[in-house]
């Protein structure tokens, strides 16, 4: 009964979203305030209905209702409760429901925190989000119903994919989806602005915090996924340029460009058309990511739904949403004003160059991801594009982008003097070059890539230090006062940029200095790596709730002193009959020691892989710093709604008249 109620609730939500996607937009075009006023309550009702449906599915999982096909496919009575609940989004149908739920959360959030936005604008924004919701709900109800019954009911479920039975699975998808779907807000703002013809600084200011929030979620989501891959896949990698990773990375790159472009639009009134295009692209790439994952067009560990009907539905949806918005863009963008002029050497130019580099990087990732498909479609053979392509293309694009990142914040708006910039940056340049040469030589391995990576990391550190010194140094206030004298969003920028430096440093060191060995070990055998002695203590059998494990123990000593004990595991999940590797990791600021069990060999021996991963944790710590920087920017006083009087001055009419006055 409960699944039927959930199903019915989804149908009602579809009806509500149909009204939400039509009446407020038409109302905004006709100036009908009653129709526009529908948007806010409908957003709330839609959220309640979808959340209720979601809870119904959670209920079915928690109470093991194997008469629901989706539950029977993705759960099992032996699966622990927390994974049974995470299994709600462990398969195709449920992850779509999570998508729809998150979209409705964003929609209701926009409806609640948009008091300063003029009524017609808000009606359009919520209407556009309602239309997106229509697409997803239709998709679910037509070809991916999570509540479909299985009659007769299965005795027990087929279990959740063991790869996904991990705490990381509980957080990674919701975070990622919050990011993906969050870009729908920036998208809806852009479409609303194109429809209403009000692209201006106020529009950029409204959509900026939403974009940053989505970007934070996406950053943390990607980080969590990378971290999960590191300890769950058991071969020490943390990024594979897998099609689905790329699908999340492309919106991130474009979203990063969008955040910076929005800043320029807000502060200087420039880049408007470009900003709108980026907002459309960020969300389009999120949708494309969904298509790639859900249609099975590309092979990937992530692709768990291969049904051509679903693929065609999503593709049609993509054409309507992305094609429609790009058409609207082509039609309306030429009417957008040009904004403030700027010199070739200015902060605007640097930001524009960075933006272009990020967009080109996203395009190159897109090309690499779809290239096998292009060739296959043209009957030119089957190939796979792997890390060599991405490394070769990505690094040359990112290197200048990161270099410009050091210059941009120091340069002045509108026009900057090159000699003055050079003078202010010469110390930073000298320090980073020196570090890039000396540090690798001290560590005993110099390659051009290590040199470049270290140079870029220290370049960002040094230029950021210069920036902070310049802002804080020239004042008589006490230190805390000086810190507070700068806005939180400025500090957010500083921390996020430092996060990039930490990230680049981590990537460079771990790529340049990691080492690994694969050995056959009998109990008592010792392997040596990076100055450590790894003694294999053997393997004991353990029984988990739904798996049988061979639990290994390796104790690690250096010069006879015990440093740590690694406990890698090899599990066999009994329901799906799938073997899984759980790496034994000792994480540390300086380096990770990492061991994973391979196959059992004759006579109690095991093949064991041992990795020494210097500074790998910095990769994820850098991501967290970026996210924290974004968080600080959100906490900026400008965005605090309550303390400000509801500013009636930014109504669309006032903006329009001020535009006329400028012209």
């Amino acid at each position, binding site marked *: 009964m409960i699944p039927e109620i959930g199903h019915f609730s989804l149908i009602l939500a579809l009806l509500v979203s149909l009204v939400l996607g039509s009446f407020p937009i038409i109302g905004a075009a006709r100036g009908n305030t009653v129709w526009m006023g529908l948007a806010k309550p409908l957003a709330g009702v839609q959220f309640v209905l979808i959340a209720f449906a979601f809870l119904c599915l959670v209920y079915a999982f928690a109470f093991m209702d194997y008469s629901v096909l989706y539950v029977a*496919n993705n759960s099992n009575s032996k699966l622990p409760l927390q994974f049974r609940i995470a299994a709600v989004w462990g398969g195709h149908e449920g992850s779509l429901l999570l998508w729809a739920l998150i979209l409705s959360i964003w929609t209701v959030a926009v409806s609640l925190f948009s008091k300063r936005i003029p009524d017609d604008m808000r009606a359009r924004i919520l209407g556009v989000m309602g239309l997106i919701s229509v697409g997803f709900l239709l998709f679910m109800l037509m070809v991916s119903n999570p509540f479909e019954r299985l009659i007769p009911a299965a005795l027990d479920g*087929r279990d959740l994919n063991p790869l996904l039975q991990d705490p990381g699975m509980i957080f990674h998808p919701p975070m990622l989806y919050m990011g993906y779907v969050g870009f729908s807000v920036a998208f809806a703002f852009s479409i609303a602005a194109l429809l209403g013809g009000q692209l201006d600084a106020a529009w950029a200011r409204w959509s900026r915090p939403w974009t940053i929030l989505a970007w934070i979620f996406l950053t943390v989501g990607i980080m969590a996924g990378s971290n999960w891959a590191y300890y769950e896949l058991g071969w020490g990698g943390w990024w594979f340029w897998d099609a689905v990773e790329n699908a999340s990375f492309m919106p991130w790159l474009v979203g990063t460009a969008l955040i910076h472009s929005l800043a320029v639009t807000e502060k200087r009134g420039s880049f408007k*058309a470009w900003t709108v*295009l980026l907002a*459309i*692209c960020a969300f*389009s790439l999120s949708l494309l990511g969904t*298509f790639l994952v859900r*249609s*099975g*067009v*590309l*092979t990937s560990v992530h692709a768990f739904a291969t049904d*051509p009907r679903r*693929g*065609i539905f999503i*593709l049609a949806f*993509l*054409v309507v949403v*992305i*094609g429609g918005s*790009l*058409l609207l*863009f*082509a*039609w309306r*963008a*030429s009417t957008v004003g040009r904004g403030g002029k700027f010199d070739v050497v200015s902060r605007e130019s640097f930001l524009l160059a960075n933006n272009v580099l990020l967009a080109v990087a996203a395009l190159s990732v*897109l090309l690499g991801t*779809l290239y*096998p*498909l*292009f060739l*296959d*479609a043209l009957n030119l053979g*089957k190939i796979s594009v792997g890390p060599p392509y991405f490394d070769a293309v990505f690094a040359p694009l990112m290197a200048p982008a990161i270099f410009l990142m050091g210059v941009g914040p120091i340069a002045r708006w509108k026009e900057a003097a090159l000699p003055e910039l050079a003078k202010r940056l010469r110390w930073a340049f000298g320090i980073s070059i020196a570090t890039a040469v000396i540090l690798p030589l001290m560590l005993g391995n110099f390659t051009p890539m290590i040199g470049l990576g270290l140079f870029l990391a220290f370049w960002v550190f040094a230029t950021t230090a210069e920036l902070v010194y310049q802002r804080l140094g020239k004042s008589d206030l006490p230190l805390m006062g000086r810190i507070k004298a700068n806005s939180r969003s400025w500090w957010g920028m500083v921390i996020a940029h430092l996060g990039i430096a930490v990230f680049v440093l981590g990537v460079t060191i771990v790529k340049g200095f990691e080492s690994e060995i694969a050995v056959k070990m009998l109990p008592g055998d010792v392997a040596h790596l990076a100055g450590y002695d790894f003694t294999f203590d053997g393997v004991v059998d353990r029984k988990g709730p739904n798996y049988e494990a061979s639990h290994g123990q390796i104790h690690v000593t250096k010069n006879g002193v015990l440093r740590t004990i690694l406990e890698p595991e090899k599990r066999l999940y009994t*329901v*799906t*009959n799938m073997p899984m590797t759980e790496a034994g990791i000792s994480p540390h600021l300086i380096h990770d020691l990492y061991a994973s069990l391979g196959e059992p060999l004759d006579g109690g021996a095991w093949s064991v892989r041992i990795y020494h991963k210097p500074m790998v944790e910095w990769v994820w710590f850098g991501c967290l710093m970026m996210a924290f920087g974004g968080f600080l920017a959100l906490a900026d006083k400008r965005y605090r709604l309550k303390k400000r009087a509801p500013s009636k001055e930014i109504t669309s009419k006032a903006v329009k008249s001020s535009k006329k006055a400028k012209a």
Partner: protein
Amino acid sequence: MKRGLIPLAIFLIVVGFLFKGLFLDPREVPSPLVGKPAPQFSLPRLDNPETKFSPKDMLGKVWLFNVWASWCGACRDEHPILVELSKAGFVPVIGMDYKDTRPEAQQWLDQGGNPYNVVAVDADGRVGIDYGVYGVPETYVIDKAGMIAYKQIGPVTYDALRDKIIPLVKRLQAQ
């Protein structure tokens, strides 16, 4: 206006490829066994462990060789299709129960119906290795001379039956 159309044009090209991509199977790897003799084996039958089944028994007939298991999820999808095919009776279907236990396999057939003329039991999966089984279910079309003519990776669907398997079997039977 014209410059603004560039993103749309790029998008439409990508859509064209994505559409085409929907009808391609990235997992479709040509099997090296196609055109080669089906590997020989002799395995106990599910209904009677005392008697054995060997591909030699089928020489002179065109037959389908379906690898399945009671633990296999996708087999659930293809099972009714196989049952229907066997009712039509125009091609013998031999099953191989792969890495499975007898009671569970028997229960599966009792519940879902038995489409197989014979089920051979490959309890430890050795024969599976000879056939290059890397995912269950897999189905082979084997001709009168005992050569593998076609390999279907993944469940047998109505479309695969109609478009590939049945025409192929008819052609081979006519030879």
